[in-house]
């Protein structure tokens, strides 16, 4: 109780005084970055900064969902992967052979079949207007949906198998990467819209379950639809929106890239700050803090919630696309809940949910620790192996890398638990203004 009390006073007092806390934390962060630069060299450190800035965009997406609106998205990974896929699909060169072949036409036919099926099913679902009894209509619509689904998916299976065998995959669209980033955000927002539509009127737990599920499904599709993504064979190199390392060298290319992501962060930050202080932001917070009274004041709660959820997903899609392009490699298996969901979650709850500056701080700080902790994880792993071999006599050397990852899984989990317990408002808490 007492710690909470002090937090409160802190919050109320902070707007009027010098932002000491922010200054101190960002100075430490700057010192850490300088330290990394001197120790690891400019190319390596700049790469780290670019990745951290992409994560900051993801974290901003999560902070408006969780911090502004109290919605917990447990499937950031899925939206990141969607963004990454769009970045890949738009920027990779066109696969001319495939498009010139009859298979492209067949793929189009499958698409048309699917469209026709959808139309027929939608039509069947409206039959009650023609006097067909409702139970019959529902049964008919479901049966037709199943039938068309089976036919289309069987046909699609045949066509895609041939594509994979003859042309590898359908290739990209050969467009500038930034177009893929925008579309990535839009696609992620669209998926977020459907999930939000289903879940946002219900208990917040359901949203967490559904997002966790959709993330695994998106990953499964990207991993297994080889004709679309080359699956486990991965796609590389993805073009950059700025001159690449081959033209201007590693460090400079990464600095260019960083300048883009930094501008994006600043733009998003400014827009979000405006929105936060605008009536729209006040309304969102009113809904988060007291649903009942917000509803009593005649606010359309579910609609507002949907807006903010979709907005968060769009940011995640854009961030994921930027990250994907930068990695220059599209590997669906590289999308892991740990790296792309829970790491982002830690950034947000540690930095300060609902506080954009805190979230950006959290993103950079956590990412630096994350990258620098690799040697530490290896040391922990050695200990564990020594223990494991000593006590149970396991052979452990074969799976060394995957186990190094698992040690970090534990640390992230512990971090989440500790932050929730001891710093539930994060290092830079949201500045709650008390209106009368």
């Amino acid at each position, binding site marked *: 109780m007492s710690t*909470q009390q002090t937090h409160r006073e802190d919050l109320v007092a902070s707007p009027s005084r010098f932002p000491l806390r922010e200054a101190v934390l960002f100075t430490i962060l700057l010192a850490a970055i300088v330290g990394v630069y001197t120790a690891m060299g400019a190319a390596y450190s700049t790469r780290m900064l670019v990745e951290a800035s992409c994560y900051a965009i993801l974290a901003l997406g999560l902070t408006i969902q969780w911090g502004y609106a109290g919605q917990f998205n447990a499937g950031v990974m899925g939206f990141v992967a969607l963004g990454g896929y769009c970045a890949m699909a738009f920027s990779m060169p066109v696969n001319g052979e495939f498009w010139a072949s009859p298979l492209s036409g067949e793929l189009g036919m499958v698409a048309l079949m699917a469209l026709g099926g959808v139309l027929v099913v939608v039509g069947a679902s409206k039959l009650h207007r023609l006097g067909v009894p409702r139970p019959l209509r529902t049964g008919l619509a479901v049966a037709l949906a199943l039938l068309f689904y089976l036919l289309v998916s069987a046909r699609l299976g045949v066509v895609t198998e041939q594509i994979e065998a003859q042309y590898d995959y359908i290739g990209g669209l050969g467009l500038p990467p930034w177009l893929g980033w925008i579309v990535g955000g839009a696609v992620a927002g669209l998926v977020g819209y459907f999930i939000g539509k289903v879940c946002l009127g219900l208990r917040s737990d359901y949203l*967490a379950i559904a997002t966790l599920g959709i993330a695994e499904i998106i990953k499964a599709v990207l991993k297994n639809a080889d004709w679309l993504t080359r699956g486990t064979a991965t796609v590389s190199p993805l073009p950059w929106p700025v001159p690449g390392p081959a033209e201007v060298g590693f460090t400079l290319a990464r600095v260019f890239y960083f300048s883009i992501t930094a501008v994006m962060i600043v733009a998003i930050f400014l827009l979000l700050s405006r929105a936060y202080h605008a009536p729209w932001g006040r309304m969102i917070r009113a809904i988060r803090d007291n649903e009942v009274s917000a509803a009593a004041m005649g606010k359309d709660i579910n609609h507002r919630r949907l807006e903010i959820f979709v907005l968060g997903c769009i940011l995640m899609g854009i961030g994921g696309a930027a990250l994907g392009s930068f990695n220059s490699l599209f590997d669906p298996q590289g999308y892991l809940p740990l790296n792309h969901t829970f790491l982002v979650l830690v950034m947000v709850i540690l930095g300060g949910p609902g506080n954009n500056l805190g979230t950006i701080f959290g993103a950079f700080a956590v990412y630096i620790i994350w990258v620098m902790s690799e040697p530490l994880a290896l040391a922990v792993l050695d200990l564990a192996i020594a223990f494991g071999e000593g006590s149970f006599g396991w052979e452990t050397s074969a799976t060394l890398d995957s186990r190094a990852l698992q040690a970090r899984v534990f640390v992230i989990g512990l971090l989440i638990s500790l932050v929730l317990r001891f710093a539930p408002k994060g290092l830079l808490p949201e500045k709650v203004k008390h209106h009368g």
Partner: protein
Amino acid sequence: MNELVFFINNVIVAGSVTGSIYAIGAVGVTLVFSIMRFAHFAHADMMTFGAFMVLLLTLAFPGAGAFLGLPTAVVMLPLAMVLTAGLAVGIDKVFYKPLRAHGVKPIVMVIASLGVTLMLQGLIRVFAGTSGENLYVDDRKEIFRLALPFESVRAPIVVTEPQIILFVLTIICIVGLHLFLSRSRLGKAMRAMSDNPDLARASGINNNLIVAVTWVIVGGLAAIAGTLLSLDVTFKPDLSFFLLLPIFAAAIVGGVGHPYGAIAGGFLVGFAETLAVFNWGVLLRPFRDSLPEWLANAGNLAFVGSEYKIVVPFFILVAILVWRPTGIFKGKVI
């Protein structure tokens, strides 16, 4: 007729197996939900922990089962249940109770349980690796082939020993749980607290006691579910998020906070999964000659490939949330 046997093996048997596992898992989730009102994301890793304990104990005493004529893993199950129950109570004490005392929102408890699940995952996988391990260390997996007494049927119905153990254990679990909830003083108190926690407190029911009892049961059930899953195939430490979705779907379909509903939901999701990945083309084979060509040559007529199995529980989840969020048996918590 061979096709029918194929159907029985691949749908009836396999569906009951998956359904049992999901059912027991979903009961655990639903119990936590009904007493503590949050979605417990660490349940799948508690299951894995239970199975891992069985694996360790089986490795330590590989010959123990031979005395009782059962696989060692089954003999070790009660001990693993105790260990998992202890773990569950401990996790609650250290991670959930302080947050509860602060009166945080349920969704914060969900995040806390994700933190716990990551810790468990990390620990288990650091020690166990991520590859599968067979729980049958020193025992042999018996396979029963029931030939049908028809001339034309050559394929037997295949049931393995672990599957029989699984069915028996599932029935024991369900009956035991039913007796506990409807007859025992603590079981009734659990239902009372799920109905109305304030009134339970006003009746002198110590909420902390009920919470502890719940965790003991949830831990025990998690150990059973995890072990059954590992017995059927192998111990896989990396299933966590793939198990959570069907289990939560089962709990929600059955009506959250409703143990019997969770059992029904578990079987529903289990059968839906096996039916969806089943190749329906097999059943058309006997009629191949009389079918139109496009249907006879349609190839694999499964609804989803097995690599997309996870879509099935998700689809069920979305359907139930849209159609009837309280679940088919009207759960208490929306």
